[in-house]
């Protein structure tokens, strides 16, 4: 079993792991030929199934993967991986490989960072200078030798303990299956959505008083129709507030994958047929305010997000990373269950 690669986009990788680590401590990382997958399945809350073409984060020409089935499955502490990757963001080159120390498998990052000194350090000092300085140093303190700026290189290695998963350990893990959505819509700026969601959650928490709020976090109502409208609302005994976005895009489905008659039979097309001011044209889900805030932290990757509403059942987010090359999209899929009213 062998895995070695160079990072091509440490910033994206770091942001990706940051977003994932907000939802779970442990991540299933699946390395395949041409594709890397990251999956988070927390005990409670939102699942993420991410799939990236290798070249979204790694250098394809340096992607070496050798394993029995052509696949390596790892269990990775995603928070630690994220912290380690922060060292790589400003690096000139970063190598990632799977290695072993004793019995512990590791993901090892070797990071080369170059920087320029401001020029107060010893450049070109000979050994005899060193010796002279050493003798002086014991008696007096003295200013450092003066010299011009120079390039300095720092090598950082970060070793993250991981677990190699046997194929049998992941056999039972499947991406959730859902019925066709009632409404699909492109979300507005996640930053805006996040700050409004957080303000609503906070207002509801404050309004509820101290006793219950600590245990149950408030539920947000998110709804949308096929006429470009999205509504975020929260209701408690004390208040009822909502924000409505209009003129959003309901993306059309790929005609290459479905025939015209199939498309016409989709629930979303039936919803589209209803008029924009008809209440029945809205699909609604009830989601946990705090969990939603963690989901929206993916906004740091400035992605395009398509939200699919299955009325009173679930919300599925397809998060497309920007700049995905050679036609193959990097996509993170979030599965969020709707709470009962």
């Amino acid at each position, binding site marked *: 079993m062998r895995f070695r690669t160079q990072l091509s986009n440490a910033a994206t990788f770091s942001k990706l792991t940051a977003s994932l680590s907000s939802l779970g*401590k*442990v991540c299933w990382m699946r390395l395949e030929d041409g594709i890397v997958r990251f999956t988070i399945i927390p005990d409670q809350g939102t699942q993420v199934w991410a799939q990236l073409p290798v070249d979204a984060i790694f250098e394809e020409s340096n992607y070496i993967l050798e394993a029995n089935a052509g696949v390596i499955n790892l*269990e*990775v*502490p995603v928070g*630690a991986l994220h*912290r*380690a990757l922060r*060292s790589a963001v400003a690096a000139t080159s970063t190598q990632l490989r799977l290695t072993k*120390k*004793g*019995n*512990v*498998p*590791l993901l090892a990052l070797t990071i080369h960072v170059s920087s320029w*000194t401001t020029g*107060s*350090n*010893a*450049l070109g*000092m000979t*050994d005899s*200078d*060193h*010796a002279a*300085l*050493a003798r002086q*140093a*014991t008696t007096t*303190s003295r200013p*450092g*030798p003066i010299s011009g700026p*120079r390039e*300095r*290189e*720092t*090598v*950082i*290695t*970060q*070793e*993250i*303990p*991981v*677990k190699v998963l046997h194929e049998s350990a992941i056999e039972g893990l499947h991406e959730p299956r859902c019925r066709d959505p009632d409404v699909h819509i492109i979300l507005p700026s996640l930053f805006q959505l996040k700050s409004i969601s957080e303000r609503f959650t906070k207002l509801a928490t404050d309004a509820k008083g101290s006793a219950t709020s600590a245990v149950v976090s408030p539920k947000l109502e998110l709804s949308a129709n096929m006429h470009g409208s999205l509504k975020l609302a929260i209701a408690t005994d004390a208040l009822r507030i909502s924000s409505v976005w209009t003129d959003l895009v309901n993306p059309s489905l790929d005609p290459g994958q479905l025939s015209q008659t199939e498309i016409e039979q989709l629930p979303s097309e039936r919803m589209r047929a209803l008029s924009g001011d008809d209440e029945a044209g809205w699909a609604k889900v009830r989601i946990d305010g705090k969990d939603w805030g963690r989901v929206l932290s993916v906004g740091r990757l400035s992605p395009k997000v398509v939200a699919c509403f299955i009325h009173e059942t679930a919300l599925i987010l397809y998060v497309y990373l920007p700049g995905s090359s050679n036609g193959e999209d990097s996509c993170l899929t979030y599965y969020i269950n709707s709470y009962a009213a």
Partner: protein
Amino acid sequence: MISLSFSLAPEALYQLHDVLTCLAKFHDTVAIEAEFDLLRLSVLNSTKTAYSAFVFEADRFFESYSFDMPRASRNARSERFCCQLYLKGLLSVFKGKTGGRDKDTAVERCEVELHERPDQTECRLAIKMICGLGVIRSYKLTYESTTVNHAVFDRTTATNQWTIEPKFLREITDHFSPSAEQLDIYSESGKVIFTSFTTKITDGKEILKKPVHTSVAIDKKDFEYFLAEDNLHIVIFLKDFKAVIAHAESAHSAITARYTRPTRPLQLAYDFGGIKTEFTLMTAGESDLGISDSSHAPELSARQTPAPVNISRASVASNTRDMPAPRARSIRPLTGTPRASARGTETNSQSQRPPPASIQFDSLFVPADDDRQWDVPNEEEEEAAEDRLGWDATGDQVWQIELIC
């Protein structure tokens, strides 16, 4: 009656605040020692593995400084006054920008006076902040008298030494995980490698909870000079190291480290603007690496007491070890898991409760009254002479030069 009074300019107040902030990272009480020409603030941490001291020179740091001790109360051996205070109290007096929001009432001068009266039960340190517009803020802090210990560190016998800008060290520690506890330093062919690690005993099943190892290698060229034996691993607490770096960076002073070998103390020091600092930290590591050079053996025998390498902090209850020198080997920075044997050693040493206090004093700290502090030449020379005798006996007198890389 002892009289001590001094006054500080605003600039010195900033510096004093930085010093107190740094000291507070080691322990909660600070020892103050006044002598005729200096004032010393020092903190010894609770596990006695780290001693930090700031010496303020009377004629450079203070606007005015006066100290007098009546002959009667003068100890035959000691001509100084010692007391200790809670750092929290001191910090709150000197906290924040002395300029503050209101420029008109900014502090213009600070006067400190000691009220020590045998007929009063309370001993007070009176601090007056003289501000603009005639505002005077005064504080009275209770102190208690104490005897002060100083860490013994003989700079002349330190075989390894380097100096570096604290900025470079901070860049290194920034890469470490916030939960990392210890730091291993060694050099190898032109590079100096800093490795952070945690000697946490984890269940074999909990691989994912094992701490991340981070190592950062920089060029020896980044140092103003670097004179240390290659492949000599020395281990200190990361928290102490970070506290020193943070202060040195605020003081814009390059840090000099001096040490001999693992299980012997390492001293970080720098001087600036009338302030002399020193941080004496106990080290752990592969002590046999150091003694592999046969010439080190005499020093060991001359000492005859195992160094109290009490390198664990009391707060880490599950991890408390008292490590006499030979046992320090259980710290293996560069292997991911403590080996079974190492773990065995650790449990062994756990059952050994702290070494008797007398041994500790013998080897690392001397009570000031018995054995005047390290910077008094006489006794130090005695000790050094002992060591040097050992060196002579081996006929190996070129050790200092030999170690230059």
